[in-house]
């Protein structure tokens, strides 16, 4: 039952991934990417990794997609470049990607995975204990990284970077 569900969701994820890479419009790519991330969240849930499924929904399908859609609307790229592909790299890109995919498939097919029982109900408790116990320093490190990213984005989004050197934002 779960295997069948996984197969269906995997096919959906593959189709939407093709949609991301080959859509003509950026908005369609963004919507296909949302579909793909939702499919991956469902896969996490089917693997009984409940926290990861929830985090995937909140972080990727929620937060990141909003930023992407916002960027798509702000940019509104001109029509003539929408459908353009990088023709000189088209064959090379597809060949290299096919090679990469084949290599990954071969390597992955050698993995010996066991059909383990699903983690028991207390896995979230274990997760939280480890996150705030053994891995508390990496966790705090991500907080620092997010702060740095926030400051960087504020700087990048500033109207004129030169104004910051003169000691303050422009008032216009």
């Amino acid at each position, binding site marked *: 039952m779960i295997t069948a569900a996984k197969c269906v969701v995997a096919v959906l994820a593959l189709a939407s991934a093709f949609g991301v890479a080959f859509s003509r419009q950026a908005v369609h790519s963004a919507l296909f990417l949302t579909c793909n991330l939702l499919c991956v969240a469902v896969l996490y849930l089917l693997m009984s990794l409940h926290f990861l499924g929830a985090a995937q929904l909140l972080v990727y399908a929620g937060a990141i997609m909003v930023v992407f859609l916002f960027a798509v609307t702000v940019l509104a790229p001109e029509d003539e470049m929408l459908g353009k592909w990088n023709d000189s790299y088209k064959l090379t890109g597809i060949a290299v990607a096919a090679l990469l995919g084949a290599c990954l498939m071969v390597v992955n097919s050698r993995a*010996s995975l066991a059909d*383990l029982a699903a983690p028991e109900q207390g896995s979230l408790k274990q997760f939280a204990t480890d996150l705030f116990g053994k891995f508390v320093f990496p966790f705090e490190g*991500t907080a620092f990284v997010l702060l740095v990213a926030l400051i960087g984005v504020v700087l990048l989004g500033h109207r004129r970077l030169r104004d910051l050197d003169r000691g303050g934002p422009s008032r216009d």
Partner: protein
Amino acid sequence: MTDGMITLFLSAALFAIGSIGVAIRRNPLIMFMCIELMLNSANLALATFSRYYARIPETLPDSIELVASKDLGSASDGSIFVFLVMTIAAAEAVVGLAIIIAIFRTRKQVDADELAELKG
């Protein structure tokens, strides 16, 4: 084919499709979305391994002996790694989009082939 192989092969395929997108598209936004796709597929592989490889002593081949059982870590370690990677991916997406918008504001057009100043 076990349950875990489905997601493992899916992650390989998603990574390949994402790399196609990065190589052949010219719109930086779509290239960026494909990079997100690749990151996400790596996450999927990591989660799959952590889920189906978690209790290692049961899954190891007989020929391998463990030095100490405390080296193994617990079953939730992989989930924590994936969670941390997700956080970093969020930061990376925000900074990347801000850079793309900043480029768009100064150049009035976004085309990955036109941005070649660093070539020298």
